[in-house]
């Protein structure tokens, strides 16, 4: 099947490993990714500035997806997924706002279509591709690997919007890890936020939040942390060193995107999955699974 994909801003500008790994694994499940062109930011930072403008940006992404003629839109970034889901809700419930935005889009020759369905990497793989098919595609089971998952905040909250997984007991990412042959470990801090949103205004606090969580994960004795959002990836992987400094801990937790892990299980070369770009010592993790 063909799926439109919108990467947002962070993936396109610095979280390349996520983009690379998604582009590698999706075709293996017969999901052909169709990039949107001339895209704009989903509106996430604009929500704090002008909610109407933010909803317009989100709606524009959906309109661009509609332009491709496809009814499914993949959003690998948690924040894009939330912003666009909320915008869909607002346009449905608020005729005034909806009217303004739809009209403005039409001036550009774009048509907003509310029936475009939004997906995240997790629910697409879990529900559309299906756990069974993921399991069957595994060529190199990641036996013996013990991992902690971090599903993030904005794809599980708030339930009323209809999210990717249960807000209090999200299991999809853990199950996706499980079918690869690895073990996902439960832990008390599982639902805690990475703090990314504070980086631009309160960087110390942001790093403190990330560091506290990484410290807890480290204490579990797991082989690595699995994420699936570029913001979480940025905090836990790129900024792990700074986070450690902030909380006064020596952090040594390999952090990988789920799609990178999946790629490994599908026997795809690590360079194609961007594993050389991860800032944390993923070699430790790789040593456990590669011969």
């Amino acid at each position, binding site marked *: 099947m063909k799926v439109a994909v919108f990467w947002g801003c962070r993936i396109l500008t610095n979280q390349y490993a996520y983009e690379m790994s998604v582009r590698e694994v999706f075709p293996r499940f017969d999901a052909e990714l169709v990039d949107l062109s001339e895209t704009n930011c989903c509106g996430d930072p604009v929500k704090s500035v002008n909610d109407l403008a933010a909803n317009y940006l989100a709606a524009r992404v959906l309109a661009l997806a509609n332009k491709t003629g496809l009814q499914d839109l993949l959003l690998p970034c948690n924040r894009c997924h939330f912003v666009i889901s909320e915008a869909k809700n607002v346009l449905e419930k608020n005729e005034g706002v909806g009217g303004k935005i739809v009209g403005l889009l039409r001036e550009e020759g774009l048509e907003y279509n509310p029936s475009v369905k939004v997906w995240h990497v997790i629910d697409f793989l879990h529900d559309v591709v299906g756990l069974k098919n993921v399991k069957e595609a595994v060529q190199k089971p990641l036996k013996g690997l013990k991992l902690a998952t971090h599903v993030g905040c904005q794809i599980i909250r708030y339930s009323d919007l209809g999210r990717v997984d*249960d807000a*209090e*007991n999200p299991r999809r990412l853990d199950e996706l890890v499980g079918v690869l042959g690895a073990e996902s470990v439960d*832990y*008390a*801090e599982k*639902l805690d936020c990475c703090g990314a949103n504070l980086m631009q205004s309160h960087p110390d606090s942001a790093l403190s939040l990330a560091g506290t969580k990484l410290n807890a994960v480290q*204490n*579990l004795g797991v082989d690595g942390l699995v994420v699936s959002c570029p913001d979480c990836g940025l905090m836990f992987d790129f900024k792990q060193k700074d986070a450690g400094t902030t909380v006064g801990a020596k952090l040594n937790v390999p952090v990988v995107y789920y799609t990178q892990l999946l790629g490994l299980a599908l026997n795809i070369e690590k360079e194609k999955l961007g594993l050389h770009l991860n800032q944390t010592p993923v070699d430790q993790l790789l040593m456990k699974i590669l011969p």
Partner: protein
Amino acid sequence: MPKIGVYVCHCGLNIAGVVDVENVTEYAKSLPDVAIARSYIYMCSEPGQRMIQEDIKTHNLDRIVIATCSPRMHEETFRKTVTEAGLNPYLLEIVNLREHVSWAHSDNPKKATEKAKALVRMGVARARLLEPLEKRKVSVKKNVLVVGGGIAGIQASLDLANAGFKVFLVEKAPSIGGRMAQLDKTFPTLDCSACILTPKMVDVAKHSNVKLLTNSEVTEVKGFVGNYEVSIVKKPRYVDEKKCVGCELCTKVCPVKVPDEFNEGLSQTRAISIYSPYAVPKVATINPKHCLRLRFNKNVCGKCVEACTAKAIKFKQQPKTIRVKVGGIIIAVGSEVFNASKMSEFGYGRYKNVISNIEFERILNASGPTGGKILSTRNGESPKTVVFVQCVGSRDKRFHEYCCRVGCMATLKQAILVREKLGEDVKIYVCFNDMRAFGKGYDEFYRRARDLDVNFVAGLPSDIRSDVHGALYFDVYDRGTNKLLEIRPDLVVLANGLVPNAGIEKIGVLFHVSRSADGFLLEAHPKLRPLESVMAGIFLAGACQGPKDIPDTVAQASGAAAKVIDLLASGEIELEPLKAVVDEDLCSGCRLCESVCPFLAIEMKSENVEGAERLRAEVVEAMCQGCGLCVSACPTKAIKMCHYTDGQVLAQVQAGCLESGARGGS
């Protein structure tokens, strides 16, 4: 030619302060067929009533119109007034000049007076066409069905039985006692629950006027108020009730372990067991889902048969259907406790030391799974820190919006008992939103808890966590100190709310009783008729109508019993003649009326007409509530509503549409 008397009441200044009552009275005099029109300051007073009665005699009046306050206030009074003067009470029309005129339009007296005149004109138009009607008497059975053997059902049954009524008390479980039997102590007196309950349980079981049917369920309800026909299924216990002596030897030898329902699954009992330590009747019951012989239908095991010296085990026992005829029904099926695993953030179901209030109640009880000892499951010692979290599943738009009414008091009780059992060393915290201690002795009880150093944290936690060693911890912000407190409890007790039974929908359908938005059974009027359901003859008692504590339950149960006594005591009931009536000649048997009637008050009777079978609708007077849906649905105008005929209503409409200056014809 009707002779109408019109009486305009001043109602002190209530009406006269806005409406020009003299003007209205003069206007009434000018209407056709009005023989006399008067006004008086308080028409409902004795002189006012006598005035009407004398006029009826003197002027031979045969229709009365009283322009006064709402008929809900005094229509019954005035009906008696005219009856005493020899006039049929349904030849009376009340016109509402207070709620509909003076109270609604107090800012515009001129227009109010015009409206009053129009309403009087309409009242007179209807009065012309009123017909005399008779209340019908229907004989009733002096038997009562009480559904549910908790404290509500027990109390109601005792009151009814003592008043000389025969009661069928049906209980689903193998024993009566319900929720109250599970409690340790009761607030605010700390009475031992079983000690105050068991005497009542024994009384009701022994009462000559009570037929106790445990392990039974109601399966069908037919009929109408005063004359219900109910089918009850007595499920098999596989034990002869008359032979079993309650020695429990069978339980000791049974090899199959089963979670003990009475102990909320905290301990295990056997496939054959007596329901609880205070079971009434004290007879063993075999659980067919777990008993090896019954489950696999094979001649296996049989250890209980060997052990039973009274030879009471009867594997071949079958369900028995009993049909009874009763005049009234009291539904007292109680409620359940909220399942907190729905609020996963608190870890109920995941962490062993996060328990529910009802589970804790069993733990506190000396006859419970721990013999009354409070132990933390982590290390087997008694907890050093116990936390209660309030409003779990209640006052929450995600689960149940209502306040459960008993959560605060139950927690206070449990907190005090923890202090009593574990002494000074245990730290007790109650995390609350509001502390609701509203009843008699309740706030004093709250103070008692504070006196015992129970700490009240004004704030609710967002979640409860467990660290790698299984120790619980959570953060909670306290309004009083403005501090974020981290608490590390050994035991967390969740104050889960009371919720409607899982089977409440079935009960509603079975008895044709509606439910309110919160899921509990709906009362006829929340303030003035809290004990009656919307079905005549069916009453509500206890937590099935809404969560409540024991004092309120007992009061409601006795109240419901009194209502039943009131209904059935004379042996007959009077039915208001405000009913639908079918003109058989016009009825085509289309069944539209039957399909729209919300009260099951229309029956189709088949009769042989000229060799062909024809259906005709017939109104079951006792069930008919006079709502009029059938009248408007009938395509052939075969149904008319007594006292609200099409003619009467249309005459009012016509009169209402005329100019106020006009006189209104006949």
